[in-house]
């Protein structure tokens, strides 16, 4: 059993979960994820690590409340126990000295991009971090990320904070400031990953995205997280979750993600989980 150190709502829908998992954090690298089992009978939920403390043995995760099992996680209190935290899983994201790296975080990705930003900076890259949210009240960790970023650019869809716009606006800002990126890394929902790929395409540089496919075991056995990258069949759990967005078959990804939508919606109402 894994003890919950902290669980709080950081912005509407997004929760920070700090859990004591010393064996997991001992070897975890940026871009890797863990699978959490909220309780008996719960789904297994893959969540990317947002921070860790090897001395304390704690792992931080930012997750979004989006269904039955994440609803259960959102009700955890310090001192509660989680049945399973399996990890680290997946291939660590490639960290080298690339030059200028644009790191885009949206939604839960503002959390999971943090270890990536930190590692890139430590490797001596020039890191430009862009955080994107629909409104000011949905942004978080700006200060934490600015410690390892040469520049932090905030984007809101309604213009309530920073610049008004989405991923494309970020590209415009870079052009205005005369910055040419050597690599883009985007963490967040599928839309954000797709838009980053689309809007940075003309630079002809790798756009590394973290795919959130439906996943079950996380070890390459079940094949549910199958996706097509560069025309080849890949499993997001063991071959990813980070891929070059330019090579991803986005239509297939979107279709596969919707596969269980009616079952998911049905369960949200019928699981008897605090009104979910």
């Amino acid at each position, binding site marked *: 059993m894994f003890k919950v150190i902290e669980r709080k709502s950081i912005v509407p829908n997004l929760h920070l979960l700090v859990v004591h998992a010393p064996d997991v954090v001992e070897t975890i690298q940026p871009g890797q994820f863990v699978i959490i089992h909220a309780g008996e009978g719960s789904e297994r939920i893959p969540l990317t690590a947002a921070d860790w403390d090897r001395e304390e043995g704690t792992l931080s995760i930012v997750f979004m*409340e989006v*269904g039955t099992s994440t609803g259960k996680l*959102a009700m955890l209190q310090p001192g509660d126990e989680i049945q399973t935290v399996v990890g680290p899983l997946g291939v660590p994201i490639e960290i080298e000295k690339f030059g200028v790296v644009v790191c885009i975080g949206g939604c839960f990705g503002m959390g999971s991009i943090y270890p990536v930003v930190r590692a890139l900076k430590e490797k001596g890259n020039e890191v430009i971090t862009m955080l994107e949210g629909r409104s000011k009240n949905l942004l978080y960790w700006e200060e934490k990320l600015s410690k390892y970023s040469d520049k932090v650019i905030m984007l809101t869809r309604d213009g*309530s904070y920073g610049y008004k716009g989405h991923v494309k606006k970020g590209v415009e800002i870079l052009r205005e400031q005369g910055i040419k990126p050597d690599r883009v890394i985007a963490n967040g929902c599928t839309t954000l990953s797709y838009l980053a790929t689309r809007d940075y395409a003309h630079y002809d540089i790798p756009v590394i995205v973290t795919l959130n496919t439906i996943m079950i075991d996380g070890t390459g056995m079940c094949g549910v997280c199958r996706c097509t990258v560069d025309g080849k069949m890949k499993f997001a759990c063991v071959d990813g979750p980070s891929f070059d967005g330019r090579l991803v078959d986005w239509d297939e990804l979107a279709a596969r993600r*919707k596969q269980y939508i009616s079952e998911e919606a049905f369960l949200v109402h019928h699981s008897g989980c605090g009104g979910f």
Partner: protein
Amino acid sequence: MKLIIDNKTIEVNRDLTVLEAAEENGIYIPKMCAHPELVPYGGCRLCIVEIEGRKGYPTSCTTIVEDGMIVRTDTNTLQDMRIDLVQLILSEHPSGCLLCEDIDGCSQFQETIRKVGVTTGCRWCPKDKDCELQKVVESFNITELSLPGLYRDLPVEKYDPFFDRDYNLCIYCGRCVRICNEYRKSSVLSLRQRGKHTTTGPSFDNNHTDAGCEYCGACVSVCPTGAMSEKSRKWWGMPDTYSSSVCPLCSINCEIQVLSLHNKIVGTIPPGKPHETAGELCVKGRFCLSEIVNRTERILEPQFHYPEGYGIVSWDEVINKGGEILQNLKPERSAVFISPDLPVEDYLAAKTFSEKVLKTDVITSSCFDTNMIAYTKLAFNSVSLEKVRKADNILSLFLNGNYNFAPLTMAVKGAASSGIPYYQLGWIKDTTSRFATQIIVPEPGDEVRILDRIITCIESGKCDNEMIKELSDRLKKNDNPVIIIGPWVLSLTNCTIILDRIRKIISITNSKLYMPDPHGNLRGLLSSVSLKPVESVLGKINKGEIDLIYLIGDAPFSVKPKKVKHLFYQSAFPAPEDLEPDVILPSTLWGEGGGTFAGENGSPVTVKQVANAHDYAISHLEILTRLASASKVKGAGVAIKNRAGKVPVRLMQQIPDDYVTASALSGIASPGKKLEFIMVQERSPHMYMNLDLGRGIEGLGELVMPGHVQINLSDAKDMEIENGDSVKITDNEVEKTYPVAVRKNIPKGVVFLTILNGSGDYKNNPCYVKIRRVNV
């Protein structure tokens, strides 16, 4: 009179508001708080106009048209002011999505993560594309927010059954509060707090149930934004089909509108334009129907009971095996039990099937006992709801209208709030009680004695009780007094005697009767089949005179009777666990097939098929036809099809005169020794086929608490009892233990229990009881 709106001359012959006159003539004026079923409010101010000769910018929803008026709705000044108003609304409403250029791409990828705990933008909102604010914003082409955003960060309220509230999305149009008070007259919702802390909801931070909410869903229907959303339909998105239908859950058979998506029922709303009609539905018609149809506990495939256990078989196989059993039947040794919620076609089929294949006329329904027979016979005199609306005095007896009969309770509330005296006799405070001139909570036995005193008073004018005298005078002298009898009377020991007294009162006064019946189509059943009283059929079964029992959507017992050789079970819902039928046949449900219901005055009402049948289910009619053909009785299958195709143009109910025996009318039950509490039981009025909705629908269960003893809040405090505690209840003969539900709508000194069927555990209902808390 004539007026000019935007240079268009308009002729109006009624006292319309300027907004209504404009809308009737196809002129668009933006609005948020105005609603066709509500008194003009002038809250959102979006509908401001300019009227020549008037100062300022009057709201068109509160301005009545005048002859010669010249109105402009679309000037630059007005548009600028409206945009400022919308900006004010948007500053407090999560609206990032409205301004996002990537909104279309978002729809493709976001579908699975829409069902978030808290709505933070349109694409993640349960009302996306069904939102009036979205439409207004689109009409103004707003692309920038001119004011800083303020997210209220209120917790989303999800603890009540059926609908959730996210007041972070509320725009204070007050429609929910007004529809609850003005239209439904429930007075559950109000605006709470002031300024930016304002929210809507029950006062004193009560939950909705304790505040007396009936869960009619009117507030959810009229809410223009995602602030209120239906739990069960929240994440399905917009329905693709809206079809009109009729609710099968009680005899009022309300007209409803079924929402479906990919041939699957996702919800039911009142007829008319969504958002614009609040309707007269009760919680069952509004929220439970789709949950009934989409229940996971349905029979999925036909099953046959082999010596070694149940096996799932194909329809062909089950029909063949069933047909073999039916081939070797002796005449008049079979009995059919049928649900009172099915269409007439199924009844005609069952009748022909019984005659030709089973060769029996023993057809009954488990609801059709002596009390029900007496009730139905008296209900032949029932008048239409219109008469209740126009009554000049109303007496309701044993009406428990909290989650039931909403058009009736609305008629009562409407009449009573216009000053008509309303007397209520019963043991529970329902939604009408707030309007009662007098509430009479009778002691056990008094329910008959009070009626006797009324009769004496009417006949001789003598009475020592002021209230009874007044009521009797009104029943006698008024032109249109109405007496309402709720089906709760069916559970009372003195039921037939009470009904006999009412018959007497009707015969000596001007009073009209209104008697709602909790079954969807008992009228249709009684007009198609000559039902036998259920007691006599059960008697035959006990005496061993019946070899085969055929259950059609009915489950009168939970264990197969000993002397019965064969049991056919045909229903959409699983059989009681120990019933052990030989054959299990999955049938369709309302909405998955069409059919005819008998309307209030016997005229047929057609119900359309609006959804695909569930898995392998087929209709009762189809099952019976196929079995008849397999039984090798010549022409039986064809006869059933033909008979079911000929629904009469008038569906007149028939019950033979000798069904209510003299013995049922003698001897008022003795109330016994007076003890500290009155225990009253009610047979669940929420049955659909053999499913008790209180047990089958989680949300309704939270409201009606089946199997729980409901007790008044202050009684519970005195006895230090809390929700969920156990109590022992005894009438000095029988002692039983029940869990407790503490409820504000139970009068002091009364405990209330919903029972599934039969007459309950105690000898009399109501009776005096003692209560003791069980120490844990």
